Protein backbone atom coordinates (compact mmCIF):
# COMPACT_ATOMS: atom_id res chain seq x y z
CA UNK A 1 0.00 0.00 0.00
CA UNK A 2 1.15 3.55 -0.65
CA UNK A 3 1.74 5.93 2.27
CA UNK A 4 -1.32 7.99 1.42
CA UNK A 5 -3.56 4.93 1.14
CA UNK A 6 -2.13 3.59 4.41
CA UNK A 7 -3.03 6.80 6.20
CA UNK A 8 -6.50 6.94 4.62
CA UNK A 9 -7.13 3.33 5.62
CA UNK A 10 -5.95 3.90 9.18
CA UNK A 11 -8.06 7.04 9.45
CA UNK A 12 -11.31 5.67 8.06
CA UNK A 13 -11.08 2.42 10.00
CA UNK A 14 -10.30 4.28 13.24
CA UNK A 15 -13.03 6.85 12.58
CA UNK A 16 -15.66 4.24 11.67
CA UNK A 17 -14.85 2.27 14.80
CA UNK A 18 -15.24 5.38 16.93
CA UNK A 19 -18.56 6.22 15.27
CA UNK A 20 -19.78 2.63 15.62
CA UNK A 21 -18.77 2.49 19.29
CA UNK A 22 -21.45 5.06 20.08
CA UNK A 23 -25.17 4.54 20.40
CA UNK A 24 -26.19 5.77 16.96
CA UNK A 25 -24.12 7.11 14.09
CA UNK A 26 -25.08 10.74 13.83
CA UNK A 27 -25.06 12.98 10.78
CA UNK A 28 -22.53 15.19 12.57
CA UNK A 29 -20.09 12.29 13.02
CA UNK A 30 -20.49 11.19 9.40
CA UNK A 31 -19.99 14.69 8.13
CA UNK A 32 -16.94 15.50 10.22
CA UNK A 33 -14.93 12.40 9.27
CA UNK A 34 -14.61 13.05 5.55
CA UNK A 35 -13.86 16.73 5.87
CA UNK A 36 -11.20 15.95 8.45
CA UNK A 37 -9.54 13.49 6.07
CA UNK A 38 -9.51 15.91 3.16
CA UNK A 39 -8.88 19.23 4.88
CA UNK A 40 -6.78 18.35 7.91
CA UNK A 41 -4.99 15.12 7.01
CA UNK A 42 -4.64 16.41 3.45
CA UNK A 43 -5.68 13.11 1.84
CA UNK A 44 -6.66 13.17 -1.82
CA UNK A 45 -10.03 11.95 -3.14
CA UNK A 46 -8.56 8.83 -4.75
CA UNK A 47 -7.00 7.60 -1.50
CA UNK A 48 -10.19 8.28 0.47
CA UNK A 49 -12.30 6.36 -2.04
CA UNK A 50 -9.81 3.50 -2.39
CA UNK A 51 -9.45 3.13 1.38
CA UNK A 52 -13.21 2.74 1.79
CA UNK A 53 -13.73 0.25 -1.04
CA UNK A 54 -15.36 -2.94 0.20
CA UNK A 55 -12.59 -5.22 -1.09
CA UNK A 56 -9.97 -3.18 0.71
CA UNK A 57 -11.75 -2.58 4.02
CA UNK A 58 -13.47 -5.96 4.42
CA UNK A 59 -10.35 -7.92 5.27
CA UNK A 60 -9.05 -5.48 7.89
CA UNK A 61 -9.54 -5.87 11.64
CA UNK A 62 -9.03 -3.46 14.52
CA UNK A 63 -5.71 -5.16 15.23
CA UNK A 64 -4.62 -4.17 11.70
CA UNK A 65 -5.78 -0.64 12.38
CA UNK A 66 -3.77 -0.41 15.59
CA UNK A 67 -0.75 -1.92 13.88
CA UNK A 68 -0.95 0.73 11.12
CA UNK A 69 -1.54 3.47 13.71
CA UNK A 70 1.61 2.37 15.55
CA UNK A 71 3.67 3.06 12.42
CA UNK A 72 2.45 6.64 11.96
CA UNK A 73 4.91 9.48 12.59
CA UNK A 74 4.22 11.25 15.87
CA UNK A 75 2.66 14.41 14.35
CA UNK A 76 0.33 12.41 12.09
CA UNK A 77 -0.59 10.08 14.94
CA UNK A 78 -1.57 13.11 17.02
CA UNK A 79 -3.75 14.37 14.17
CA UNK A 80 -5.47 11.00 13.78
CA UNK A 81 -6.11 10.80 17.50
CA UNK A 82 -7.51 14.35 17.52
CA UNK A 83 -9.78 13.37 14.61
CA UNK A 84 -11.01 10.25 16.36
CA UNK A 85 -11.83 12.25 19.48
CA UNK A 86 -13.45 14.94 17.31
CA UNK A 87 -16.01 12.34 16.22
CA UNK A 88 -17.08 11.82 19.83
CA UNK A 89 -17.18 15.56 20.43
CA UNK A 90 -19.25 16.13 17.27
CA UNK A 91 -21.87 13.80 18.69
CA UNK A 92 -21.49 15.43 22.15
CA UNK A 93 -21.29 12.08 23.91
CA UNK A 94 -18.86 9.24 24.51
CA UNK A 95 -19.86 5.68 25.27
CA UNK A 96 -17.72 3.11 27.16
CA UNK A 97 -16.72 1.27 23.95
CA UNK A 98 -15.59 4.58 22.46
CA UNK A 99 -13.47 5.33 25.54
CA UNK A 100 -11.93 1.88 25.16
CA UNK A 101 -11.21 2.39 21.47
CA UNK A 102 -9.56 5.77 22.08
CA UNK A 103 -7.50 4.21 24.83
CA UNK A 104 -6.35 1.27 22.72
CA UNK A 105 -5.47 3.53 19.85
CA UNK A 106 -3.51 5.81 22.18
CA UNK A 107 -1.60 2.79 23.50
CA UNK A 108 -0.83 1.65 19.95
CA UNK A 109 0.51 5.12 19.19
CA UNK A 110 2.58 5.02 22.37
CA UNK A 111 0.92 8.16 23.58
CA UNK A 112 1.46 9.64 27.02
CA UNK A 113 -1.48 10.92 29.03
CA UNK A 114 -0.33 14.48 28.46
CA UNK A 115 -0.13 14.02 24.69
CA UNK A 116 -3.55 12.42 24.66
CA UNK A 117 -5.02 15.32 26.60
CA UNK A 118 -3.64 17.79 24.08
CA UNK A 119 -5.24 15.78 21.24
CA UNK A 120 -8.47 15.77 23.19
CA UNK A 121 -8.50 19.55 23.62
CA UNK A 122 -7.64 20.10 19.96
CA UNK A 123 -10.44 17.70 19.00
CA UNK A 124 -12.93 19.79 20.95
CA UNK A 125 -11.75 22.93 19.15
CA UNK A 126 -11.92 21.28 15.71
CA UNK A 127 -15.35 19.74 16.31
CA UNK A 128 -16.80 23.24 16.63
CA UNK A 129 -15.39 24.26 13.27
CA UNK A 130 -16.35 21.62 10.72
CA UNK A 131 -19.69 22.30 9.05
CA UNK A 132 -21.82 19.79 7.29
CA UNK A 133 -20.11 18.39 4.20
CA UNK A 134 -23.19 18.82 2.00
CA UNK A 135 -23.22 22.51 2.84
CA UNK A 136 -19.49 22.84 2.31
CA UNK A 137 -19.20 21.07 -1.00
CA UNK A 138 -22.72 20.90 -2.34
CA UNK A 139 -25.13 18.03 -2.52
Amino acid sequence: MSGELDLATTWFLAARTMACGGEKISIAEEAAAGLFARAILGLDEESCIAAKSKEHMQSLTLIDCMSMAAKLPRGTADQVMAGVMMIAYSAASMQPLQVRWASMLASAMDMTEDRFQRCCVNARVISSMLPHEQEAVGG
Partner: protein
Amino acid sequence: MADTTGNFDFLVKYDDRVAHLARQAEAYVHSDPDSALFKLRLMVETMARTLVDMEAPHLVDSDLTVMLRSLQRSGLLGRREADEMHAIRRDGNAAVHGYDSTTPTAMRRLVDAWRISRWYARMVKRGAKVDPPPFKPPPAPAQGAGQRAARAKAEVLEEAVEARRDRTRAALLLFGQDDDIKAMRWRLRGELRALEFVAVAAGEPIVDADFVALVMAMDLEQILEHPSWGRSSQEAKASVEQQFEAFKGAHADAEQEYLLERASLAREARSTEH
Protein backbone atom coordinates in the same frame (compact mmCIF):
# COMPACT_ATOMS: atom_id res chain seq x y z
CA MET B 1 -47.11 28.59 -19.75
CA ALA B 2 -46.74 25.42 -21.82
CA ASP B 3 -48.73 22.32 -20.95
CA THR B 4 -47.00 20.04 -18.48
CA THR B 5 -46.60 16.29 -18.66
CA GLY B 6 -48.49 15.67 -15.44
CA ASN B 7 -45.40 14.38 -13.60
CA PHE B 8 -46.44 16.27 -10.46
CA ASP B 9 -50.21 15.77 -10.63
CA PHE B 10 -50.05 13.19 -7.82
CA LEU B 11 -48.72 15.89 -5.49
CA VAL B 12 -51.83 18.11 -5.60
CA LYS B 13 -53.72 16.16 -2.96
CA TYR B 14 -50.77 16.31 -0.55
CA ASP B 15 -49.67 19.93 -1.00
CA ASP B 16 -51.15 22.00 -3.80
CA ARG B 17 -48.73 24.93 -3.33
CA VAL B 18 -45.72 22.62 -3.80
CA ALA B 19 -47.42 20.91 -6.74
CA HIS B 20 -48.07 24.31 -8.35
CA LEU B 21 -44.40 25.33 -8.05
CA ALA B 22 -43.27 21.99 -9.48
CA ARG B 23 -45.61 22.32 -12.45
CA GLN B 24 -44.35 25.83 -13.13
CA ALA B 25 -40.76 24.58 -13.04
CA GLU B 26 -41.68 21.78 -15.42
CA ALA B 27 -43.31 24.21 -17.82
CA TYR B 28 -40.22 26.48 -17.86
CA VAL B 29 -37.55 23.79 -18.11
CA HIS B 30 -36.92 24.27 -21.85
CA SER B 31 -37.92 27.89 -22.35
CA ASP B 32 -36.42 29.46 -19.22
CA PRO B 33 -34.17 27.17 -17.15
CA ASP B 34 -33.27 29.99 -14.72
CA SER B 35 -36.93 30.41 -13.79
CA ALA B 36 -37.36 26.63 -13.57
CA LEU B 37 -34.50 26.43 -11.07
CA PHE B 38 -35.84 29.37 -9.13
CA LYS B 39 -39.26 27.69 -8.85
CA LEU B 40 -37.64 24.40 -7.77
CA ARG B 41 -35.62 26.17 -5.12
CA LEU B 42 -38.83 27.75 -3.81
CA MET B 43 -40.52 24.37 -3.94
CA VAL B 44 -37.79 22.79 -1.79
CA GLU B 45 -37.95 25.69 0.64
CA THR B 46 -41.73 25.28 0.94
CA MET B 47 -41.35 21.54 1.55
CA ALA B 48 -38.66 22.11 4.17
CA ARG B 49 -40.76 24.75 5.94
CA THR B 50 -43.76 22.40 6.12
CA LEU B 51 -41.65 19.57 7.52
CA VAL B 52 -39.81 21.81 9.97
CA ASP B 53 -43.15 23.16 11.15
CA MET B 54 -44.07 19.57 12.07
CA GLU B 55 -40.73 18.77 13.76
CA ALA B 56 -39.13 21.97 15.07
CA PRO B 57 -41.51 24.95 14.69
CA HIS B 58 -39.02 27.38 16.26
CA LEU B 59 -36.79 27.00 13.18
CA VAL B 60 -39.51 27.69 10.64
CA ASP B 61 -38.20 31.19 9.83
CA SER B 62 -34.59 30.03 9.40
CA ASP B 63 -32.83 29.91 6.07
CA LEU B 64 -33.03 26.78 3.94
CA THR B 65 -29.62 25.42 4.98
CA VAL B 66 -30.51 25.60 8.67
CA MET B 67 -33.88 23.95 8.06
CA LEU B 68 -32.34 21.10 6.05
CA ARG B 69 -29.67 20.57 8.71
CA SER B 70 -32.35 20.41 11.39
CA LEU B 71 -34.38 17.89 9.39
CA GLN B 72 -31.32 15.71 8.91
CA ARG B 73 -30.41 15.83 12.56
CA SER B 74 -33.94 14.83 13.52
CA GLY B 75 -33.61 11.80 11.24
CA LEU B 76 -36.58 12.85 9.08
CA LEU B 77 -34.47 13.69 6.06
CA GLY B 78 -32.30 10.89 4.68
CA ARG B 79 -28.94 11.38 3.00
CA ARG B 80 -30.24 10.88 -0.53
CA GLU B 81 -33.12 13.33 -0.16
CA ALA B 82 -30.78 15.81 1.54
CA ASP B 83 -28.29 15.54 -1.33
CA GLU B 84 -31.04 16.21 -3.85
CA MET B 85 -32.47 19.11 -1.90
CA HIS B 86 -29.02 20.66 -1.49
CA ALA B 87 -28.42 20.25 -5.23
CA ILE B 88 -31.63 22.18 -5.97
CA ARG B 89 -30.73 24.80 -3.35
CA ARG B 90 -27.27 25.27 -4.88
CA ASP B 91 -28.43 25.53 -8.53
CA GLY B 92 -31.44 27.65 -7.54
CA ASN B 93 -29.15 30.04 -5.67
CA ALA B 94 -26.86 30.29 -8.69
CA ALA B 95 -29.86 31.18 -10.89
CA VAL B 96 -31.05 33.80 -8.39
CA HIS B 97 -27.56 35.31 -8.30
CA GLY B 98 -27.51 35.85 -12.04
CA TYR B 99 -25.57 32.83 -13.34
CA ASP B 100 -27.24 31.68 -16.56
CA SER B 101 -28.39 28.07 -16.42
CA THR B 102 -28.95 25.51 -19.12
CA THR B 103 -31.84 23.14 -19.77
CA PRO B 104 -29.77 20.02 -18.92
CA THR B 105 -29.10 21.46 -15.43
CA ALA B 106 -32.78 22.35 -14.91
CA MET B 107 -33.89 18.94 -16.21
CA ARG B 108 -31.64 17.10 -13.74
CA ARG B 109 -32.96 19.14 -10.85
CA LEU B 110 -36.53 18.57 -12.07
CA VAL B 111 -35.96 14.81 -11.87
CA ASP B 112 -34.49 15.30 -8.38
CA ALA B 113 -37.59 17.32 -7.44
CA TRP B 114 -39.87 14.56 -8.73
CA ARG B 115 -38.06 11.95 -6.59
CA ILE B 116 -38.17 14.21 -3.53
CA SER B 117 -41.89 14.85 -4.14
CA ARG B 118 -42.70 11.15 -3.76
CA TRP B 119 -40.80 11.06 -0.48
CA TYR B 120 -42.38 14.35 0.64
CA ALA B 121 -45.92 13.09 -0.04
CA ARG B 122 -45.21 10.09 2.22
CA MET B 123 -43.86 12.43 4.90
CA VAL B 124 -46.85 14.81 4.99
CA LYS B 125 -49.36 11.99 4.91
CA ARG B 126 -47.90 9.09 6.84
CA GLY B 127 -48.93 5.72 5.54
CA ALA B 128 -50.08 7.14 2.21
CA LYS B 129 -49.55 4.91 -0.80
CA VAL B 130 -47.68 7.15 -3.20
CA ASP B 131 -47.00 5.46 -6.48
CA PRO B 132 -46.96 7.93 -9.38
CA PRO B 133 -46.19 6.77 -12.92
CA PRO B 134 -42.52 7.00 -14.00
CA PHE B 135 -41.12 10.47 -14.72
CA LYS B 136 -41.65 11.66 -18.31
CA PRO B 137 -39.24 14.38 -19.46
CA PRO B 138 -41.19 17.38 -20.78
CA PRO B 139 -40.86 17.28 -24.59
CA ALA B 140 -38.36 19.73 -26.10
CA PRO B 141 -39.62 22.26 -28.63
CA ALA B 142 -38.26 22.03 -32.18
CA GLN B 143 -34.59 23.09 -32.20
CA GLY B 144 -32.18 24.21 -34.88
CA ALA B 145 -28.79 22.55 -35.40
CA GLY B 146 -27.03 25.32 -33.42
CA GLN B 147 -29.32 24.88 -30.43
CA ARG B 148 -28.92 21.11 -30.51
CA ALA B 149 -25.14 21.44 -30.57
CA ALA B 150 -25.16 23.91 -27.65
CA ARG B 151 -27.42 21.63 -25.68
CA ALA B 152 -25.19 18.61 -26.36
CA LYS B 153 -22.19 20.56 -25.03
CA ALA B 154 -24.18 21.53 -21.93
CA GLU B 155 -25.07 17.86 -21.38
CA VAL B 156 -21.40 16.86 -21.56
CA LEU B 157 -20.44 19.58 -19.08
CA GLU B 158 -23.26 18.59 -16.75
CA GLU B 159 -22.19 14.91 -16.87
CA ALA B 160 -18.60 15.85 -16.05
CA VAL B 161 -19.60 18.06 -13.15
CA GLU B 162 -21.99 15.48 -11.71
CA ALA B 163 -19.24 12.85 -11.92
CA ARG B 164 -16.84 15.19 -10.15
CA ARG B 165 -19.38 15.95 -7.41
CA ASP B 166 -20.10 12.24 -6.97
CA ARG B 167 -16.40 11.58 -6.42
CA THR B 168 -16.14 14.44 -3.94
CA ARG B 169 -19.14 13.10 -2.05
CA ALA B 170 -17.82 9.52 -2.11
CA ALA B 171 -14.49 10.73 -0.72
CA LEU B 172 -16.18 12.61 2.10
CA LEU B 173 -18.60 9.95 3.31
CA LEU B 174 -17.60 7.96 6.36
CA PHE B 175 -19.34 4.93 4.85
CA GLY B 176 -19.87 4.12 1.17
CA GLN B 177 -23.29 4.70 -0.40
CA ASP B 178 -23.78 0.94 -0.78
CA ASP B 179 -22.21 -0.18 2.50
CA ASP B 180 -24.32 -2.21 4.89
CA ILE B 181 -23.71 0.11 7.84
CA LYS B 182 -25.73 -2.04 10.23
CA ALA B 183 -23.59 -5.11 9.50
CA MET B 184 -20.40 -3.08 9.68
CA ARG B 185 -21.42 -1.58 13.02
CA TRP B 186 -22.23 -5.02 14.39
CA ARG B 187 -18.82 -6.38 13.30
CA LEU B 188 -16.80 -3.45 14.67
CA ARG B 189 -18.66 -3.44 17.99
CA GLY B 190 -18.07 -7.18 18.28
CA GLU B 191 -14.35 -6.68 17.75
CA LEU B 192 -14.32 -3.82 20.25
CA ARG B 193 -16.01 -5.96 22.91
CA ALA B 194 -13.51 -8.75 22.35
CA LEU B 195 -10.62 -6.30 22.67
CA GLU B 196 -12.23 -4.84 25.79
CA PHE B 197 -11.72 -8.17 27.61
CA VAL B 198 -8.06 -8.25 26.61
CA ALA B 199 -7.53 -4.62 27.58
CA VAL B 200 -9.14 -5.02 30.98
CA ALA B 201 -6.84 -7.96 31.68
CA ALA B 202 -3.78 -6.05 30.38
CA GLY B 203 -4.00 -2.99 32.60
CA GLU B 204 -4.91 0.64 32.94
CA PRO B 205 -6.28 2.64 30.03
CA ILE B 206 -4.57 5.88 29.00
CA VAL B 207 -7.86 7.66 28.49
CA ASP B 208 -9.39 9.34 31.48
CA ALA B 209 -13.12 9.43 30.71
CA ASP B 210 -13.67 12.20 33.27
CA PHE B 211 -11.17 14.41 31.51
CA VAL B 212 -12.83 13.74 28.15
CA ALA B 213 -16.21 14.66 29.64
CA LEU B 214 -14.77 17.79 31.25
CA VAL B 215 -13.40 19.03 27.93
CA MET B 216 -16.73 18.20 26.28
CA ALA B 217 -18.53 20.38 28.80
CA MET B 218 -16.15 23.34 28.49
CA ASP B 219 -16.90 26.39 26.37
CA LEU B 220 -14.54 26.99 23.52
CA GLU B 221 -13.48 30.30 25.08
CA GLN B 222 -12.53 28.51 28.30
CA ILE B 223 -10.33 26.10 26.35
CA LEU B 224 -8.67 28.81 24.25
CA GLU B 225 -7.83 30.81 27.38
CA HIS B 226 -6.82 27.86 29.55
CA PRO B 227 -3.34 28.32 31.12
CA SER B 228 -2.13 24.83 30.09
CA TRP B 229 -3.85 24.16 26.77
CA GLY B 230 -4.76 27.67 25.63
CA ARG B 231 -1.75 28.34 23.46
CA SER B 232 -1.62 24.99 21.69
CA SER B 233 -5.36 24.95 21.13
CA GLN B 234 -5.24 28.47 19.65
CA GLU B 235 -2.48 27.31 17.31
CA ALA B 236 -4.50 24.22 16.39
CA LYS B 237 -7.57 26.37 15.73
CA ALA B 238 -5.65 28.76 13.48
CA SER B 239 -4.05 25.91 11.57
CA VAL B 240 -7.35 24.05 11.09
CA GLU B 241 -9.09 27.24 9.98
CA GLN B 242 -6.41 27.79 7.38
CA GLN B 243 -6.52 24.20 6.09
CA PHE B 244 -10.28 24.11 6.01
CA GLU B 245 -10.55 27.45 4.21
CA ALA B 246 -7.98 26.26 1.64
CA PHE B 247 -10.04 23.12 1.02
CA LYS B 248 -13.31 25.03 0.75
CA GLY B 249 -11.63 27.63 -1.46
CA ALA B 250 -10.37 24.99 -3.92
CA HIS B 251 -13.84 23.52 -4.12
CA ALA B 252 -15.49 26.93 -4.50
CA ASP B 253 -13.06 27.80 -7.34
CA ALA B 254 -13.99 24.60 -9.19
CA GLU B 255 -17.71 25.32 -8.75
CA GLN B 256 -17.23 28.91 -9.92
CA GLU B 257 -15.42 27.70 -13.02
CA TYR B 258 -18.32 25.38 -13.74
CA LEU B 259 -20.91 28.14 -13.29
CA LEU B 260 -19.05 30.42 -15.69
CA GLU B 261 -18.67 27.68 -18.29
CA ARG B 262 -22.34 26.81 -17.96
CA ALA B 263 -23.34 30.47 -18.30
CA SER B 264 -21.26 30.74 -21.45
CA LEU B 265 -23.01 27.66 -22.92
CA ALA B 266 -26.40 29.16 -22.00
CA ARG B 267 -25.50 32.36 -23.85
CA GLU B 268 -24.32 30.32 -26.82
CA ALA B 269 -27.64 28.45 -26.90
CA ARG B 270 -29.58 31.73 -26.74
CA SER B 271 -27.57 33.32 -29.51
CA THR B 272 -28.41 30.43 -31.86
CA GLU B 273 -32.13 31.11 -31.33
CA HIS B 274 -31.89 34.49 -33.10
